[in-house]
Every structure is written in structure tokens, then in C-alpha cells.
């Protein structure tokens, strides 16, 4: 009996994922209403449950893709994978007010520049403080602080060791998770309540998954504005980290 249910879940992986996510959303909305009197957004709770399930899945399977590594939940990998995630993000652009987006365009560009340089300096600084002296390691750890894709792309391009690349990925993933968890809590304090600050936020945080999750849990109407700038972040990071940043670090370390 149990085996047959397992078989259905494996065979109908995407359909099963719709059900699992629907159940998580339903439970989250109940928790939000009953236990927090609506103070904490249902989607914020759903994302936290998702991260919790990812942890459990990772421990059980020993894999890298959280819950999606357990065969019966493999559909989660398709539903939440890069393809459908990007498709849904593009769809949110249909709700963008073009005039608002254009007004905040310059702020988005400034945010992208700061959001690339600032985390890199912090990552590179801590790499030095923790005893790394070679330019490749320092640059790769700095790049990991930009996003978890920039780290390994940079490391592979400039020949960093696999240990350092693993550190850079871990830094980027932790950054994405922290952005998802803390954005709804800090939104009021940092003034994240209008399209303009959402565009600044997207450019500064960069990590598409962090921004997508963080804004969804804060205020859905801000999602497309943040996503618009965040999606440029990884590309720009992959552009400057292995080139300009690496050369600068090498010039300093000698």
C-alpha cells in the first residue's frame, strides 16, 4: 500500500509537488491567522517551512538539493527549479508600473554597483583575516559573498582550490537564506515599502532566490521591482569578479 503511494508520487512528480506546496501554503495561512493574528505573512511562514523541509531533506538524503533529493519529492526540484522560477518572475513583470520602474532606474544601477563591490570587499577582508594570502582564494571567497553562483564561476575561472570554492558557495547560500528569513522582519526599519526602495534592495542583495523569497514574504507588490534589478546582479558579478576584482586583489597581494 505504502509502496504504491510512493510509486504514484514518484511517477507524478510535478503533480505531487503542486499538492505538497499547496499543503504547505494552507498550513502556513492557518498558522499566520491563528497563531500570529496575521502579523506574520503566510508566505513568510511558508518559506520558513520550505527551508526547514530543505534542511530535513538534506540530512536524510545527504544531497545538495534539500527536499528535492528525496525521490518522492523530486517534483519540488522541477517546480522550484531555475526554469519555472524564472518563468514566474518574468510573469510578475506584467504587474509592473512602467513609470515607477523608469523613475527608479538610476537608483537600481547605483544599487547594483554597491551591491557588487560591498559584499566583495567584506568577503575578501574576512578571507585575509582568516589567513588566506593568495589572490585566487581571496577573490573567490569575496565573490561568494556576492552570490553563490558568482563564487564558483569566479573560482573556476581563476583556478581556486575546491575547498575555497566550496566555502564561497556556502557563503552565498547562507546569504540567500538569511535574506529570505530577515527581509520581512527588517522591511519597516529599512524603509522597504515602495517600488523605488524595492529596486534598490534587489540591486544590493543580488541573490535572485534571496530577493524573490524575501520580497514575497514582505509585500508581493514589491516583487517585480526587486527582481528586475536582482536578475542583473549575478551576471555583473560574474563579469567583474574574475577580471577587475581579481586583478586588483593580485596587485595588492603581489
Amino acid at each position, binding site marked *: 500500500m505504502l509502496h504504491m503511494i510512493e510509486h504514484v508520487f514518484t511517477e507524478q512528480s510535478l503533480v505531487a509537488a503542486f499538492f505538497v506546496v499547496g499543503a504547505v501554503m494552507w498550513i502556513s495561512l492557518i498558522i499566520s491567522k491563528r497563531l500570529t493574528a496575521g502579523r506574520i505573512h503566510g508566505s513568510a511562514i511558508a518559506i520558513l517551512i520550505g527551508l526547514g523541509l530543505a534542511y530535513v531533506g538534506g540530512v536524510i538524503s545527504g544531497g545538495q538539493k534539500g527536499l528535492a533529493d528525496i525521490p518522492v519529492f523530486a517534483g519540488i526540484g522541477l517546480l522550484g527549479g531555475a526554469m519555472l522560477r524564472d518563468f514566474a518572475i518574468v510573469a510578475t513583470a506584467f*504587474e509592473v508600473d512602467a513609470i515607477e520602474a523608469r523613475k527608479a532606474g538610476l537608483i537600481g544601477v547605483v544599487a547594483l554597483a554597491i551591491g557588487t563591490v560591498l559584499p566583495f570587499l567584506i568577503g575578501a577582508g574576512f578571507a585575509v583575516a582568516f589567513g588566506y594570502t593568495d589572490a585566487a582564494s581571496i577573490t573567490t571567497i569575496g565573490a561568494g559573498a556576492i552570490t553563490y553562483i558568482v563564487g564558483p564561476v569566479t573560482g573556476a575561472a581563476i583556478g581556486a582550490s575546491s575547498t575555497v570554492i566550496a566555502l564561497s558557495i556556502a557563503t552565498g547560500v547562507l546569504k540567500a537564506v538569511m535574506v529570505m528569513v530577515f527581509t520581512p522582519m527588517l522591511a519597516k526599519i529599512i524603509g522597504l515599502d515602495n517600488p523605488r526602495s524595492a529596486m534598490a534592495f534587489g540591486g544590493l542583495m543580488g541573490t535572485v532566490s534571496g530577493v524573490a523569497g524575501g520580497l514575497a514574504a514582505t509585500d508581493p507588490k514589491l516583487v517585480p521591482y526587486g527582481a528586475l534589478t536582482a536578475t542583473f546582479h549575478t551576471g555583473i558579478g560574474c*563579469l567583474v569578479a574574475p577580471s577587475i576584482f581579481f586583478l586588483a586583489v593580485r596587485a595588492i597581494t603581489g
Partner: protein
Amino acid sequence: MTIFGVALLSLCTLIGVFLGDLLGVALGVKANVGGVGIAMMLLIATRIWLQKSGGLNHGVKLGIEFWGTMYIPIVVAMAAQQNVVKALSGGPLVLVTAVTAVTACFAATALLGRIGRERPSDVHDPEEIQRGGDIIAGDLIPDAPARKV
């Protein structure tokens, strides 16, 4: 027809990602540069063009906005497949770097957002933006007039 909306969304995504790949090659980067962002701008432009030419009918809207309403569930599925175990087991260098970087970026958001900060009354069309928010939050009322919440 609904499929026209979905197909239009696909076309914008495909063109955007393709242009992002081209941009990556042109810049000598092993990554897609802004593909999704370009796709978003294409879709914004397409909506304006459809509105002006009168082609924005119920089906097209439904096909695109359905995927907007699926955004949060997809993000939840995305959260469920993050490598959380690795994120939490990275050691002190990973922890201090990530915490400091995130804190600094939150602070920078507060600063940037305050520069020339606008009053709510300056926002171009708050009802339209709120309606967009409702759709992304999962509430699809096709052709509903913009409403205040």
C-alpha cells in the same frame, strides 16, 4: 485564448534569456547577463503595446497572470530545495562573511531608499500597483477594476 498569453510569456522569457546569453558571450563571461531582467522589460513593453493596440484581451491576461499568481508557491518550492545543510555547516569564515555582508546590504538599502525618498502621494498609480500585488500574492480576479485595500 489563454495559451496565447502563456506563449507570449514564453516568447519573452526565451528571447530575454537568449539575449542574456549573447551578452554574456560578448562580455566574455561564463554566465547569463540579465536574461530574466531583459525578459521582464520585454514583457512590460509588450503589455504597453497590447494595451495601445487593443490586443490585451481576457485570455491573454489570464495566461500571463496565472503564472504571476503561482509565483509564491514556486518560491516556496525553491526554498525547499536550497542546500540549507551546507549553509548552516560552513564554519566561522562563512558565518561572519555572510552575516556582515547581509547586514551591510540591509543598511545600504536603508540609505539608498532614503535618498530622494518619495511620499506615498508621489507614487504614480498606487491602485494599479496594489492590484499587481494582489495577483502576485495569489489572488486572480480577471478584469477586476483596480481597488483600494
